């Protein structure tokens, strides 16, 4: 199993290299290599899934590479299998879409792009398979590097370069934190294999240090507030399939790492850890949702929504840690499965949405919401797939987004008394924030879909927008199908998640029932998307027939009424800023806003609003300024005068002499 998985990874790299020589001609890469890559992804998913369902024992393997005392260890267990499953399922869709998407043009040559893309894919797989710190770090940074190249594929645009720089910087600093965390974890055994780390016994202080460092590192990659700043820059900069990969899959590797370290290596030990993660997750969720609501660029909007979803996932993780440390294993399992399933769901619908933005970009070459609109008539396919994604990410039944949020709320609800008063008070508040976030997400996605696809085109150029080609449609359809299936039959996702929690926590939620999920017990809570869907479809159908029987089908096409208002243009629709207005109004404290409103007498009124992340001013700019100050200070040492230099070495000598005296 493991060998074949490795072989598949090798295949990916091989495809990438094969495509390299084709300089400007993209046919081979697009029409052959990407589809093949998608096929490999599919097989990948099948293998991982079968491993997961069959519940086999973990498989290990050692490659004769790496450092002399530390060859590359690989290991396939339930946790990694689950994330490999996610990787395979989603990347299959993305690769197919990319086959239709990437064309020769400005920016990186297709061959090189293909190489970077597949290396990115492979490195993510290795990150998940790695079983020693060194291989993990190598794969981790390779992942960052390849994605960096993908992000900066259109490096002639300064903003994109800036985004790439910020991204790689954050990634690198985060990586160093993870590395230090491993340094603590090996616990003086000088064995960097995860196996040794599992066995290492750490004092509470060191364990907490390792945990916090890991949280910093993985949080930076996952985009937890306040380490999220790179995310809304990098995602829009990248080509859409890459954004889909980063948001849908790369962030999940960070989730994986967090789970691996906290549950598998550190065997969660203190409830305070859980509360910390919980607080961070909730804050990020709310923060992301609020900022997504005020964005005017569709990809930035989706990026912030990624921050929100990551926040939700970490909320689940934190909750699960709290429960686990309070010996409520069943609820821990519930919360963890919620987090896992939400990872899968987010991977599905977020990549779906990013891909649709890609199609929209190709069709209209506009990213700003203020220039789009009415595309549902020009590109019905993309619009309908996007609708699925929108409803799913908005957490509406009967689609998959609702399932994970439902599970998470369940785990929030049925918390019997937690022995720690504060945690106990914290839980319901958390539930409240989560509910608010979910509702906000609905608002955000409504804005996204409504402005891009509904209403009147805001630009004349949109008239000749064309629908996606068949390969792109195939990719979109694949992901949309995933959203629907998991929504209707949550067991598909719950079973694998349960087998993960079985291995990780020794408990798992009840997945006995076929047609509904009742994680704890049917008396307490149960949900069946299937029945719900059937119910809606049934009632709608009956209603439709009845209406047609009782009444008539007569209908006239008329110009819109709009309260009889006559001179209406497409410019009178709400803009993205308009939709953001209530949020800006309610959560004003979150933003740093600069507005200039036109005066009534203004003949050519200009309305401009500039919204900035407070985090910049609060954290990052001060850091930059201090660095600059210190650098100036240090610069004084190199004053250019030889006698001063001699003085330095003289004093060094004297000081050291005094030291040894």
């Amino acid at each position, binding site marked *: 199993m493991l060998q074949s998985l490795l072989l598949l990874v090798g295949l990916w790299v091989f495809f990438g290299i094969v495509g390299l020589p084709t300089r400007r001609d993209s046919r081979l890469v697009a029409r052959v290599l990407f589809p093949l890559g998608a096929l490999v992804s599919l097989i990948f998913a099948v293998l991982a899934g079968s491993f997961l369902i069959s519940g086999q024992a973990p498989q290990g393997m050692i490659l004769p590479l790496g450092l002399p005392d530390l060859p590359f260890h690989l290991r396939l267990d339930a946790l990694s299998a689950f994330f490999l499953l996610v990787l395979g399922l989603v990347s299959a869709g993305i690769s197919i879409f990319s086959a239709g998407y990437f064309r020769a043009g400005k920016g990186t040559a297709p061959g090189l792009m293909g190489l970077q893309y597949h290396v990115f894919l492979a490195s993510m797989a290795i990150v998940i398979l790695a079983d020693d710190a060194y291989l993990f770090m190598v794969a981790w940074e390779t992942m960052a590097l390849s994605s960096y190249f993908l992000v900066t594929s259109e490096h002639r645009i300064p903003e994109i370069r800036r985004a790439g720089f910020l991204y790689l910087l954050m990634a690198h600093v985060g990586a160093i934190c993870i590395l230090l965390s491993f340094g603590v974890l090996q616990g003086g055994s000088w064995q960097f294999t995860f196996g040794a780390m599992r066995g290492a016994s750490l004092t509470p202080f060191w364990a907490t240090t390792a945990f916090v460092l890991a949280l910093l590192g993985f949080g930076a990659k996952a985009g937890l507030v306040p380490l999220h700043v790179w995310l809304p820059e990098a995602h829009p900069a990248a080509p859409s399939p890459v954004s889909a990969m980063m948001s849908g899959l790369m962030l999940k590797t960070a989730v994986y790492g967090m789970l691996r370290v906290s549950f598998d290596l550190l065997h969660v030990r203190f409830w305070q850890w859980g509360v910390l993660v919980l607080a961070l997750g909730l804050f990020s969720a709310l923060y992301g949702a609020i900022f997504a609501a005020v964005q005017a660029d569709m990809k930035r909007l989706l990026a912030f929504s990624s921050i929100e979803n990551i926040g939700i996932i970490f909320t689940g993780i934190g909750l699960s840690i709290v429960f686990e440390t309070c010996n409520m294993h069943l609820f821990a399992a519930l919360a963890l499965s919620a987090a896992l399933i939400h990872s899968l769901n987010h991977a599905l619908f977020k990549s779906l949405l990013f891909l649709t933005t890609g199609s929209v970009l190709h069709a209209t070459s506009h990213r700003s919401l203020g220039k789009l609109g009415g595309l549902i008539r020009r590109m019905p396919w993309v619009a309908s797939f996007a609708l699925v994604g929108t409803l799913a990410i908005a957490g509406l039944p009967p689609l998959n987004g609702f399932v994970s949020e439902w599970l998470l709320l369940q785990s929030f609800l049925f918390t019997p008394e937690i022995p720690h008063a504060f945690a106990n008070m914290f839980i319901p508040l958390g539930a409240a924030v989560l509910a608010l976030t979910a*509702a906000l997400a609905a608002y955000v996605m409504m*804005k996204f879909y409504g402005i891009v696809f509904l209403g009147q085109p805001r630009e004349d150029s949109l008239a000749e927008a064309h629908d996606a080609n068949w390969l792109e449609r195939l990719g979109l359809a694949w992901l949309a199908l995933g959203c629907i299936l998991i929504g209707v039959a949550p067991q598909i996702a719950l079973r694998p998640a349960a087998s993960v929690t079985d291995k990780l926590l020794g408990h798992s939620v009840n997945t006995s029932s076929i047609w509904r999920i009742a994680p704890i017990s049917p008396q307490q809570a149960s949900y069946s998307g299937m029945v719900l869907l059937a119910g809606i479809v049934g009632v709608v159908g009956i209603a439709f027939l009845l209406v047609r029987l009782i009444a008539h089908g007569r209908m006239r096409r008329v110009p819109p009424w709009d309260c009889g208002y006559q001179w209406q243009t497409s410019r009178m629709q709400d803009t993205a800023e308009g*939709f953001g207005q209530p949020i800006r109004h309610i959560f004003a404290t979150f933003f740093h806003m600069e507005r200039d409103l036109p005066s009534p007498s203004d003949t050519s009124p200009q309305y401009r609003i500039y919204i900035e992340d407070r985090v910049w001013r609060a954290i990052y700019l001060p850091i930059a300024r201090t660095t600059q100050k210190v650098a100036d200070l240090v610069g004084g040492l190199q004053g250019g005068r030889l006698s001063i230099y001699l003085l330095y070495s003289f004093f060094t000598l004297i000081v050291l002499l005094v030291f040894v005296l």
Partner: protein
Amino acid sequence: MRDITVVRQFGEVVLAIAIAPLFVGWIAQCRAWMQNRSAPLLRQTYRMLRKLFDKDAAMAATASPLFRTTPYILFGTMVLAAAIIPSLATDLPFAHAADAIALIGLFATARVFLSLAAMDIGTAFGTMGARREMMVGFLAEPALLMVLFNAFLLYGSTALPSLVDGYRAHPTVIDPSAIFAAVAFVMVLLAENARIPIDNPATHLELTMIHEAALLEYSARHLALLEWASGLKLFNYACIGFALFLPWGIATNGADSGTALLISIAALLAKLVVAGAALALVESLSAKLRIFRAPEFLAMAFLLAVLGLLVHLLLGTKLA
């Protein structure tokens, strides 16, 4: 046994569909009395629906399929919701398919579809209505969830029927948090159903309307379905309220004799009459808020609900 429950389920749904417009009419009547106007007939709402069904639909030229299917979807979701809520009896097959959280999900779905449809035509007022609808929604929804959480925590279940059963099992218990929850719930109900002080269903004053702005482009049968759906929504909310705070008379598990059913129907009607009157009273006594004040109103509801939750955790009665 099983078929009986199915029959009961079906009967409940039919009843809900049937009397929802009546409830709306009743409220209108009460309001008229209180504002000593001459009241419309009780069956005025039915008439209006019939008239609308007869009319030819005038569909905006730019409308997409989404716009046309939305009324049916809205109606469908509301009917489904009615099927989930234990208005008459508690052992309902559908209740196992979707608990209270799913119920809120359903309402959210309905809202999102309505707003999307409102944006579809691309008129100024349509989009405005959609935006405001969602704004009210994203504040009201969590508030409602929090209200439900109180009961959930108390009875350890998210299925409304089991909540009712729980109440019936311990009729004496009154949780101190209930009072917060009740107030919050009423506020949410007002907001969600486009009632004063948030919105006024009676007017089409462009700048203040919320719900009506969303329906602006609809006509004839589509409008009828939407009106009916909003009537159902109000009815559903009322029933949720009953299930949470005054569950008396609802036929619980086991008690599925005809008499119990009759009692429950009678109880439901009585409650509706009172509730309608009370609602009308509230609406007549309060003035409509500026749109900017609406968030504060709902935030208040949300905070009340959360407060109730904390109160429950502090000095709530613990049940086995």
